[in-house]
């Protein structure tokens, strides 16, 4: 190593130790600014949901609940029976659908990423074709009817098991990020295909599995269409996303919550405030899962044994 390089290296480490240079400041400013822009809308909703209504309608930036915290909207929501029930449905169907979908999508994506195995390219083309073309509502409805999925809990879980978008993303990821050399090495150590998949591929793909799992979970958490179209009349199967949707568009749902609030001795809550509180409730569970998954896709740096 030449002297110049040594000097450079020293400088680099010095900078690192000393902390920020101009570049770092730019990076931080940019990121923080954008983060604030993203965070503020949610914060606004949150503050509005705990601000007394006569304060809220005066307007303002809702930076802080200046006039005291008022949790009555949350009380109203949680005193409504269908809310609590729908939370349970949402959690269970999201968990089941996400697990199933992740399992099916990722294992298929891994298989298809082995492009040298016969038939995989054809299967890949067959899958990707679905990105562009679907049969439409009527044939889907008929199919679910024949499979006995109509008005059935499982219609919210099963039909969406293969997610085309994430199939493509994961197949690509497996192709690039899981090194063939490593697989070969494992094979030499006596692993068969199963061993390679379980002991090498899956652990290595944790960041992507976590990220895709999160996305699929969010999709399932927010999905109300499958209930609306294919179940529709089984009150006890309503997912929370559907309740939220109804809070935004359907007078009868809103009335129900407002009546409930009055019957537990609260003041008749205005719709706008109830909506804000419902939005927060709708986000909370998935927000709780987020940190556990985030760990996986940001700290992958320590994994070490990656390609090359």
């Amino acid at each position, binding site marked *: 190593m030449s002297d110049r390089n040594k000097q450079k290296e020293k400088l680099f480490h010095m900078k690192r130790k000393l902390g920020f240079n101009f570049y770092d400041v730019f990076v931080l400013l940019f990121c923080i600014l954008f983060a604030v822009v993203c965070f503020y809308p949610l914060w606004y909703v949150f503050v509005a949901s705990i601000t007394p*209504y*006569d304060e809220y*309608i*005066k307007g303002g930036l809702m930076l802080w609940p200046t006039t005291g915290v008022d949790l009555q909207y949350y009380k109203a929501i949680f005193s409504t*029976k*269908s809310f609590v029930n729908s939370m349970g449905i949402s959690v269970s169907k999201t968990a089941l659908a996400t697990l199933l979908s992740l399992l099916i999508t990722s294992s298929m994506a891994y298989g298809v990423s082995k492009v040298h195995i*016969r*038939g995989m390219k*054809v299967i890949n083309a067959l899958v990707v074709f679905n990105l562009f073309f679907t049969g439409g*509502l*009527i*044939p889907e*409805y*008929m*199919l679910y*009817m*024949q499979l006995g999925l*109509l008005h059935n809990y499982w219609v919210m879980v099963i039909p969406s098991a293969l997610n085309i978008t994430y199939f493509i993303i994961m197949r690509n990821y497996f192709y690039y990020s899981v090194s063939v050399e490593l697989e070969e090495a494992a094979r030499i150590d006596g692993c068969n295909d199963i061993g390679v998949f379980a002991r090498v591929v899956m652990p290595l793909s944790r960041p992507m599995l976590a990220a895709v799992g999160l996305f699929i979970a969010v999709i399932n958490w927010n999905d109300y269409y499958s209930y*609306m*179209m294919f179940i*529709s*009349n089984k*009150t*006890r199967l*309503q997912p929370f996303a559907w309740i939220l*949707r*109804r809070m935004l*568009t*359907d*007078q*009868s*749902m809103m*009335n*129900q919550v*407002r*009546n409930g609030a*009055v019957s537990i001795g609260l*003041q*008749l809550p*205005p*719709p*706008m405030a109830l909506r804000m509180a419902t939005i927060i409730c709708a986000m909370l569970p998935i927000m709780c899962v987020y940190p556990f998954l985030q760990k996986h896709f940001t700290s992958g740096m320590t994994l070490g044994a990656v390609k090359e």
Partner: protein
Amino acid sequence: MKAKKLLSLILVFALALATLAGCSKNAASSSSDQTDTGAATTTNADRENVNIRFAQFGNSVDDVDGMENDPIKAAIESAVNVSLEYDTGADGFDDRMQTELFTGGAPDLFPTWGESDKISKWVSDGLVVNISEIVNADPDRYPTLYKVINSEEYKAYNKLYTGDADNAYAIYGVAAFAEPSFAGVSVYNQAILDEVNSGAVPATVDEFLAYASAAGQAGYVGWWPRNDKLTNWNEIDKTLAAPQGTTIMAPSGDAWTGFIPSGTLGTDDEYWTLATTSEKSKEVIKQLAQLYATGGLDANIGVKGDFDDAYADFGAGKIGAANFGFGYPGQFKDFYTSCWLAANPSAQMSDLTLGTALTENGTTGTTYTTGTWIGSHYFIPTSCENPDRVLDLVEYLASSAGQDLLQNTVDGVFDTSHGSDYWNDINKAYGYGDDGRCKYVWFSYIFCGTEYRVDFENNGWWEAVSNPSDYSEEWATESDQALTSYAQGIIDTFVDSAVTSLPAYYNLISLSSDASDIRTKLSDITNSYLTQMIGGQMDIDANWDSYVSEYENAGAADLETMLNDAIAQARSLQ
């Protein structure tokens, strides 16, 4: 590889077969063998107890316990000897109904809005049951329905919707309002009225414009007409354009909307002229643009919503005058409680003042109406297994006993033994508030688009639905009654001059689908031009001609001819 291909081929083939088989099975399960010709003494109690799924828009079925304890539901079930299953929805409801109908899974009795294109397609595709066939085969079993569907007027509606007068495929939800309904009255915030107008309620167009501008200058929003983001011009039109003898509405809704009549209504020389693009309308738009520029209209009108944003602003005392369709007195009560009282818990009735219809040169604007409301029509799908039993249900509901049960009456007289608490408790299970409506919320639109009691026993179909009984005055709580009668009192002073009744045959005007296409285009043009002209993005004088020419290109003149022809045709049907 080959094996794989073969396998997939087989799978696809099997699947296709399964689907085909499914289709044909569905199509085959029609219901021609359902004509039960029991003896005259057979009653519902002797007939098989079946499950009937009934769908209605906009209720809720979340409260399972409340539903189980619903005495009205139980009473209907025991009277007809069926078990009822309620089905409802708001978002996506129509889509679902149509999908279920097309795939053979529709509820046994379900609603849709009455567009003749849709209904006649359903009929020709054999998707809905011919009610006449079943009812006429057994008049003793369905006496009320027999009378209803064989009335001349009912047949006229059959002809209107399907072209076949003798066969009824739907229960029509057509009815008159007990009171004439109209739009174009503002409610004023009295405090702002006091501040900028010495408390005087504007009576003429000029006074109103002056007030709205003055309120705008004083730091308020002068006027908020309900406008659905400037796609619904009705309130603006009726408030300002009607008194000036014109209309700025695009042809939409009623067949004659956007037109002004000349000649004597009801005779051969009546003629309707398109007024949307007239010079008078241009003047009205200029007044609106002027209002907008001076703060008389909210700077964000067309962007902000009515019920969230405008209600909140009005409740917070930022708006001088608001229109939300108070021609229907109950709506003033609703506005007062949900908009004003909700934001100002210590409010008093005197905080708000209901204005009158504005005048220009001493005349009030005119609302042309037949006085009827066309609600949703109810159908029985051909996939229904027991259409005769569904009609038993309909027959019961149409009878005096059924109407008494639904409408809280005894032999047509309001039943005072049930307080409004009794009804509130029942209806709360279905997502209604403490609105004190002393009647049942299911089956409320069937027969009668206005949810009133109809008396088929003593009247023919048309007499019954055009003279329904409204009991709203009898049930109201004291404060509600005060609000409603206040509004009623004011409305009574001008309603005779503000509403012109059209001859009954105007109900039978049927426009072709070409005409509907033109109407849709015209609405789009109007929405876009008027919004930009009022918002100051477009100079009115410079662009009015292109507005008019876009109208011409979209077929405005043709529409005028089509309308007058359709009116003439309806007149001749009479």
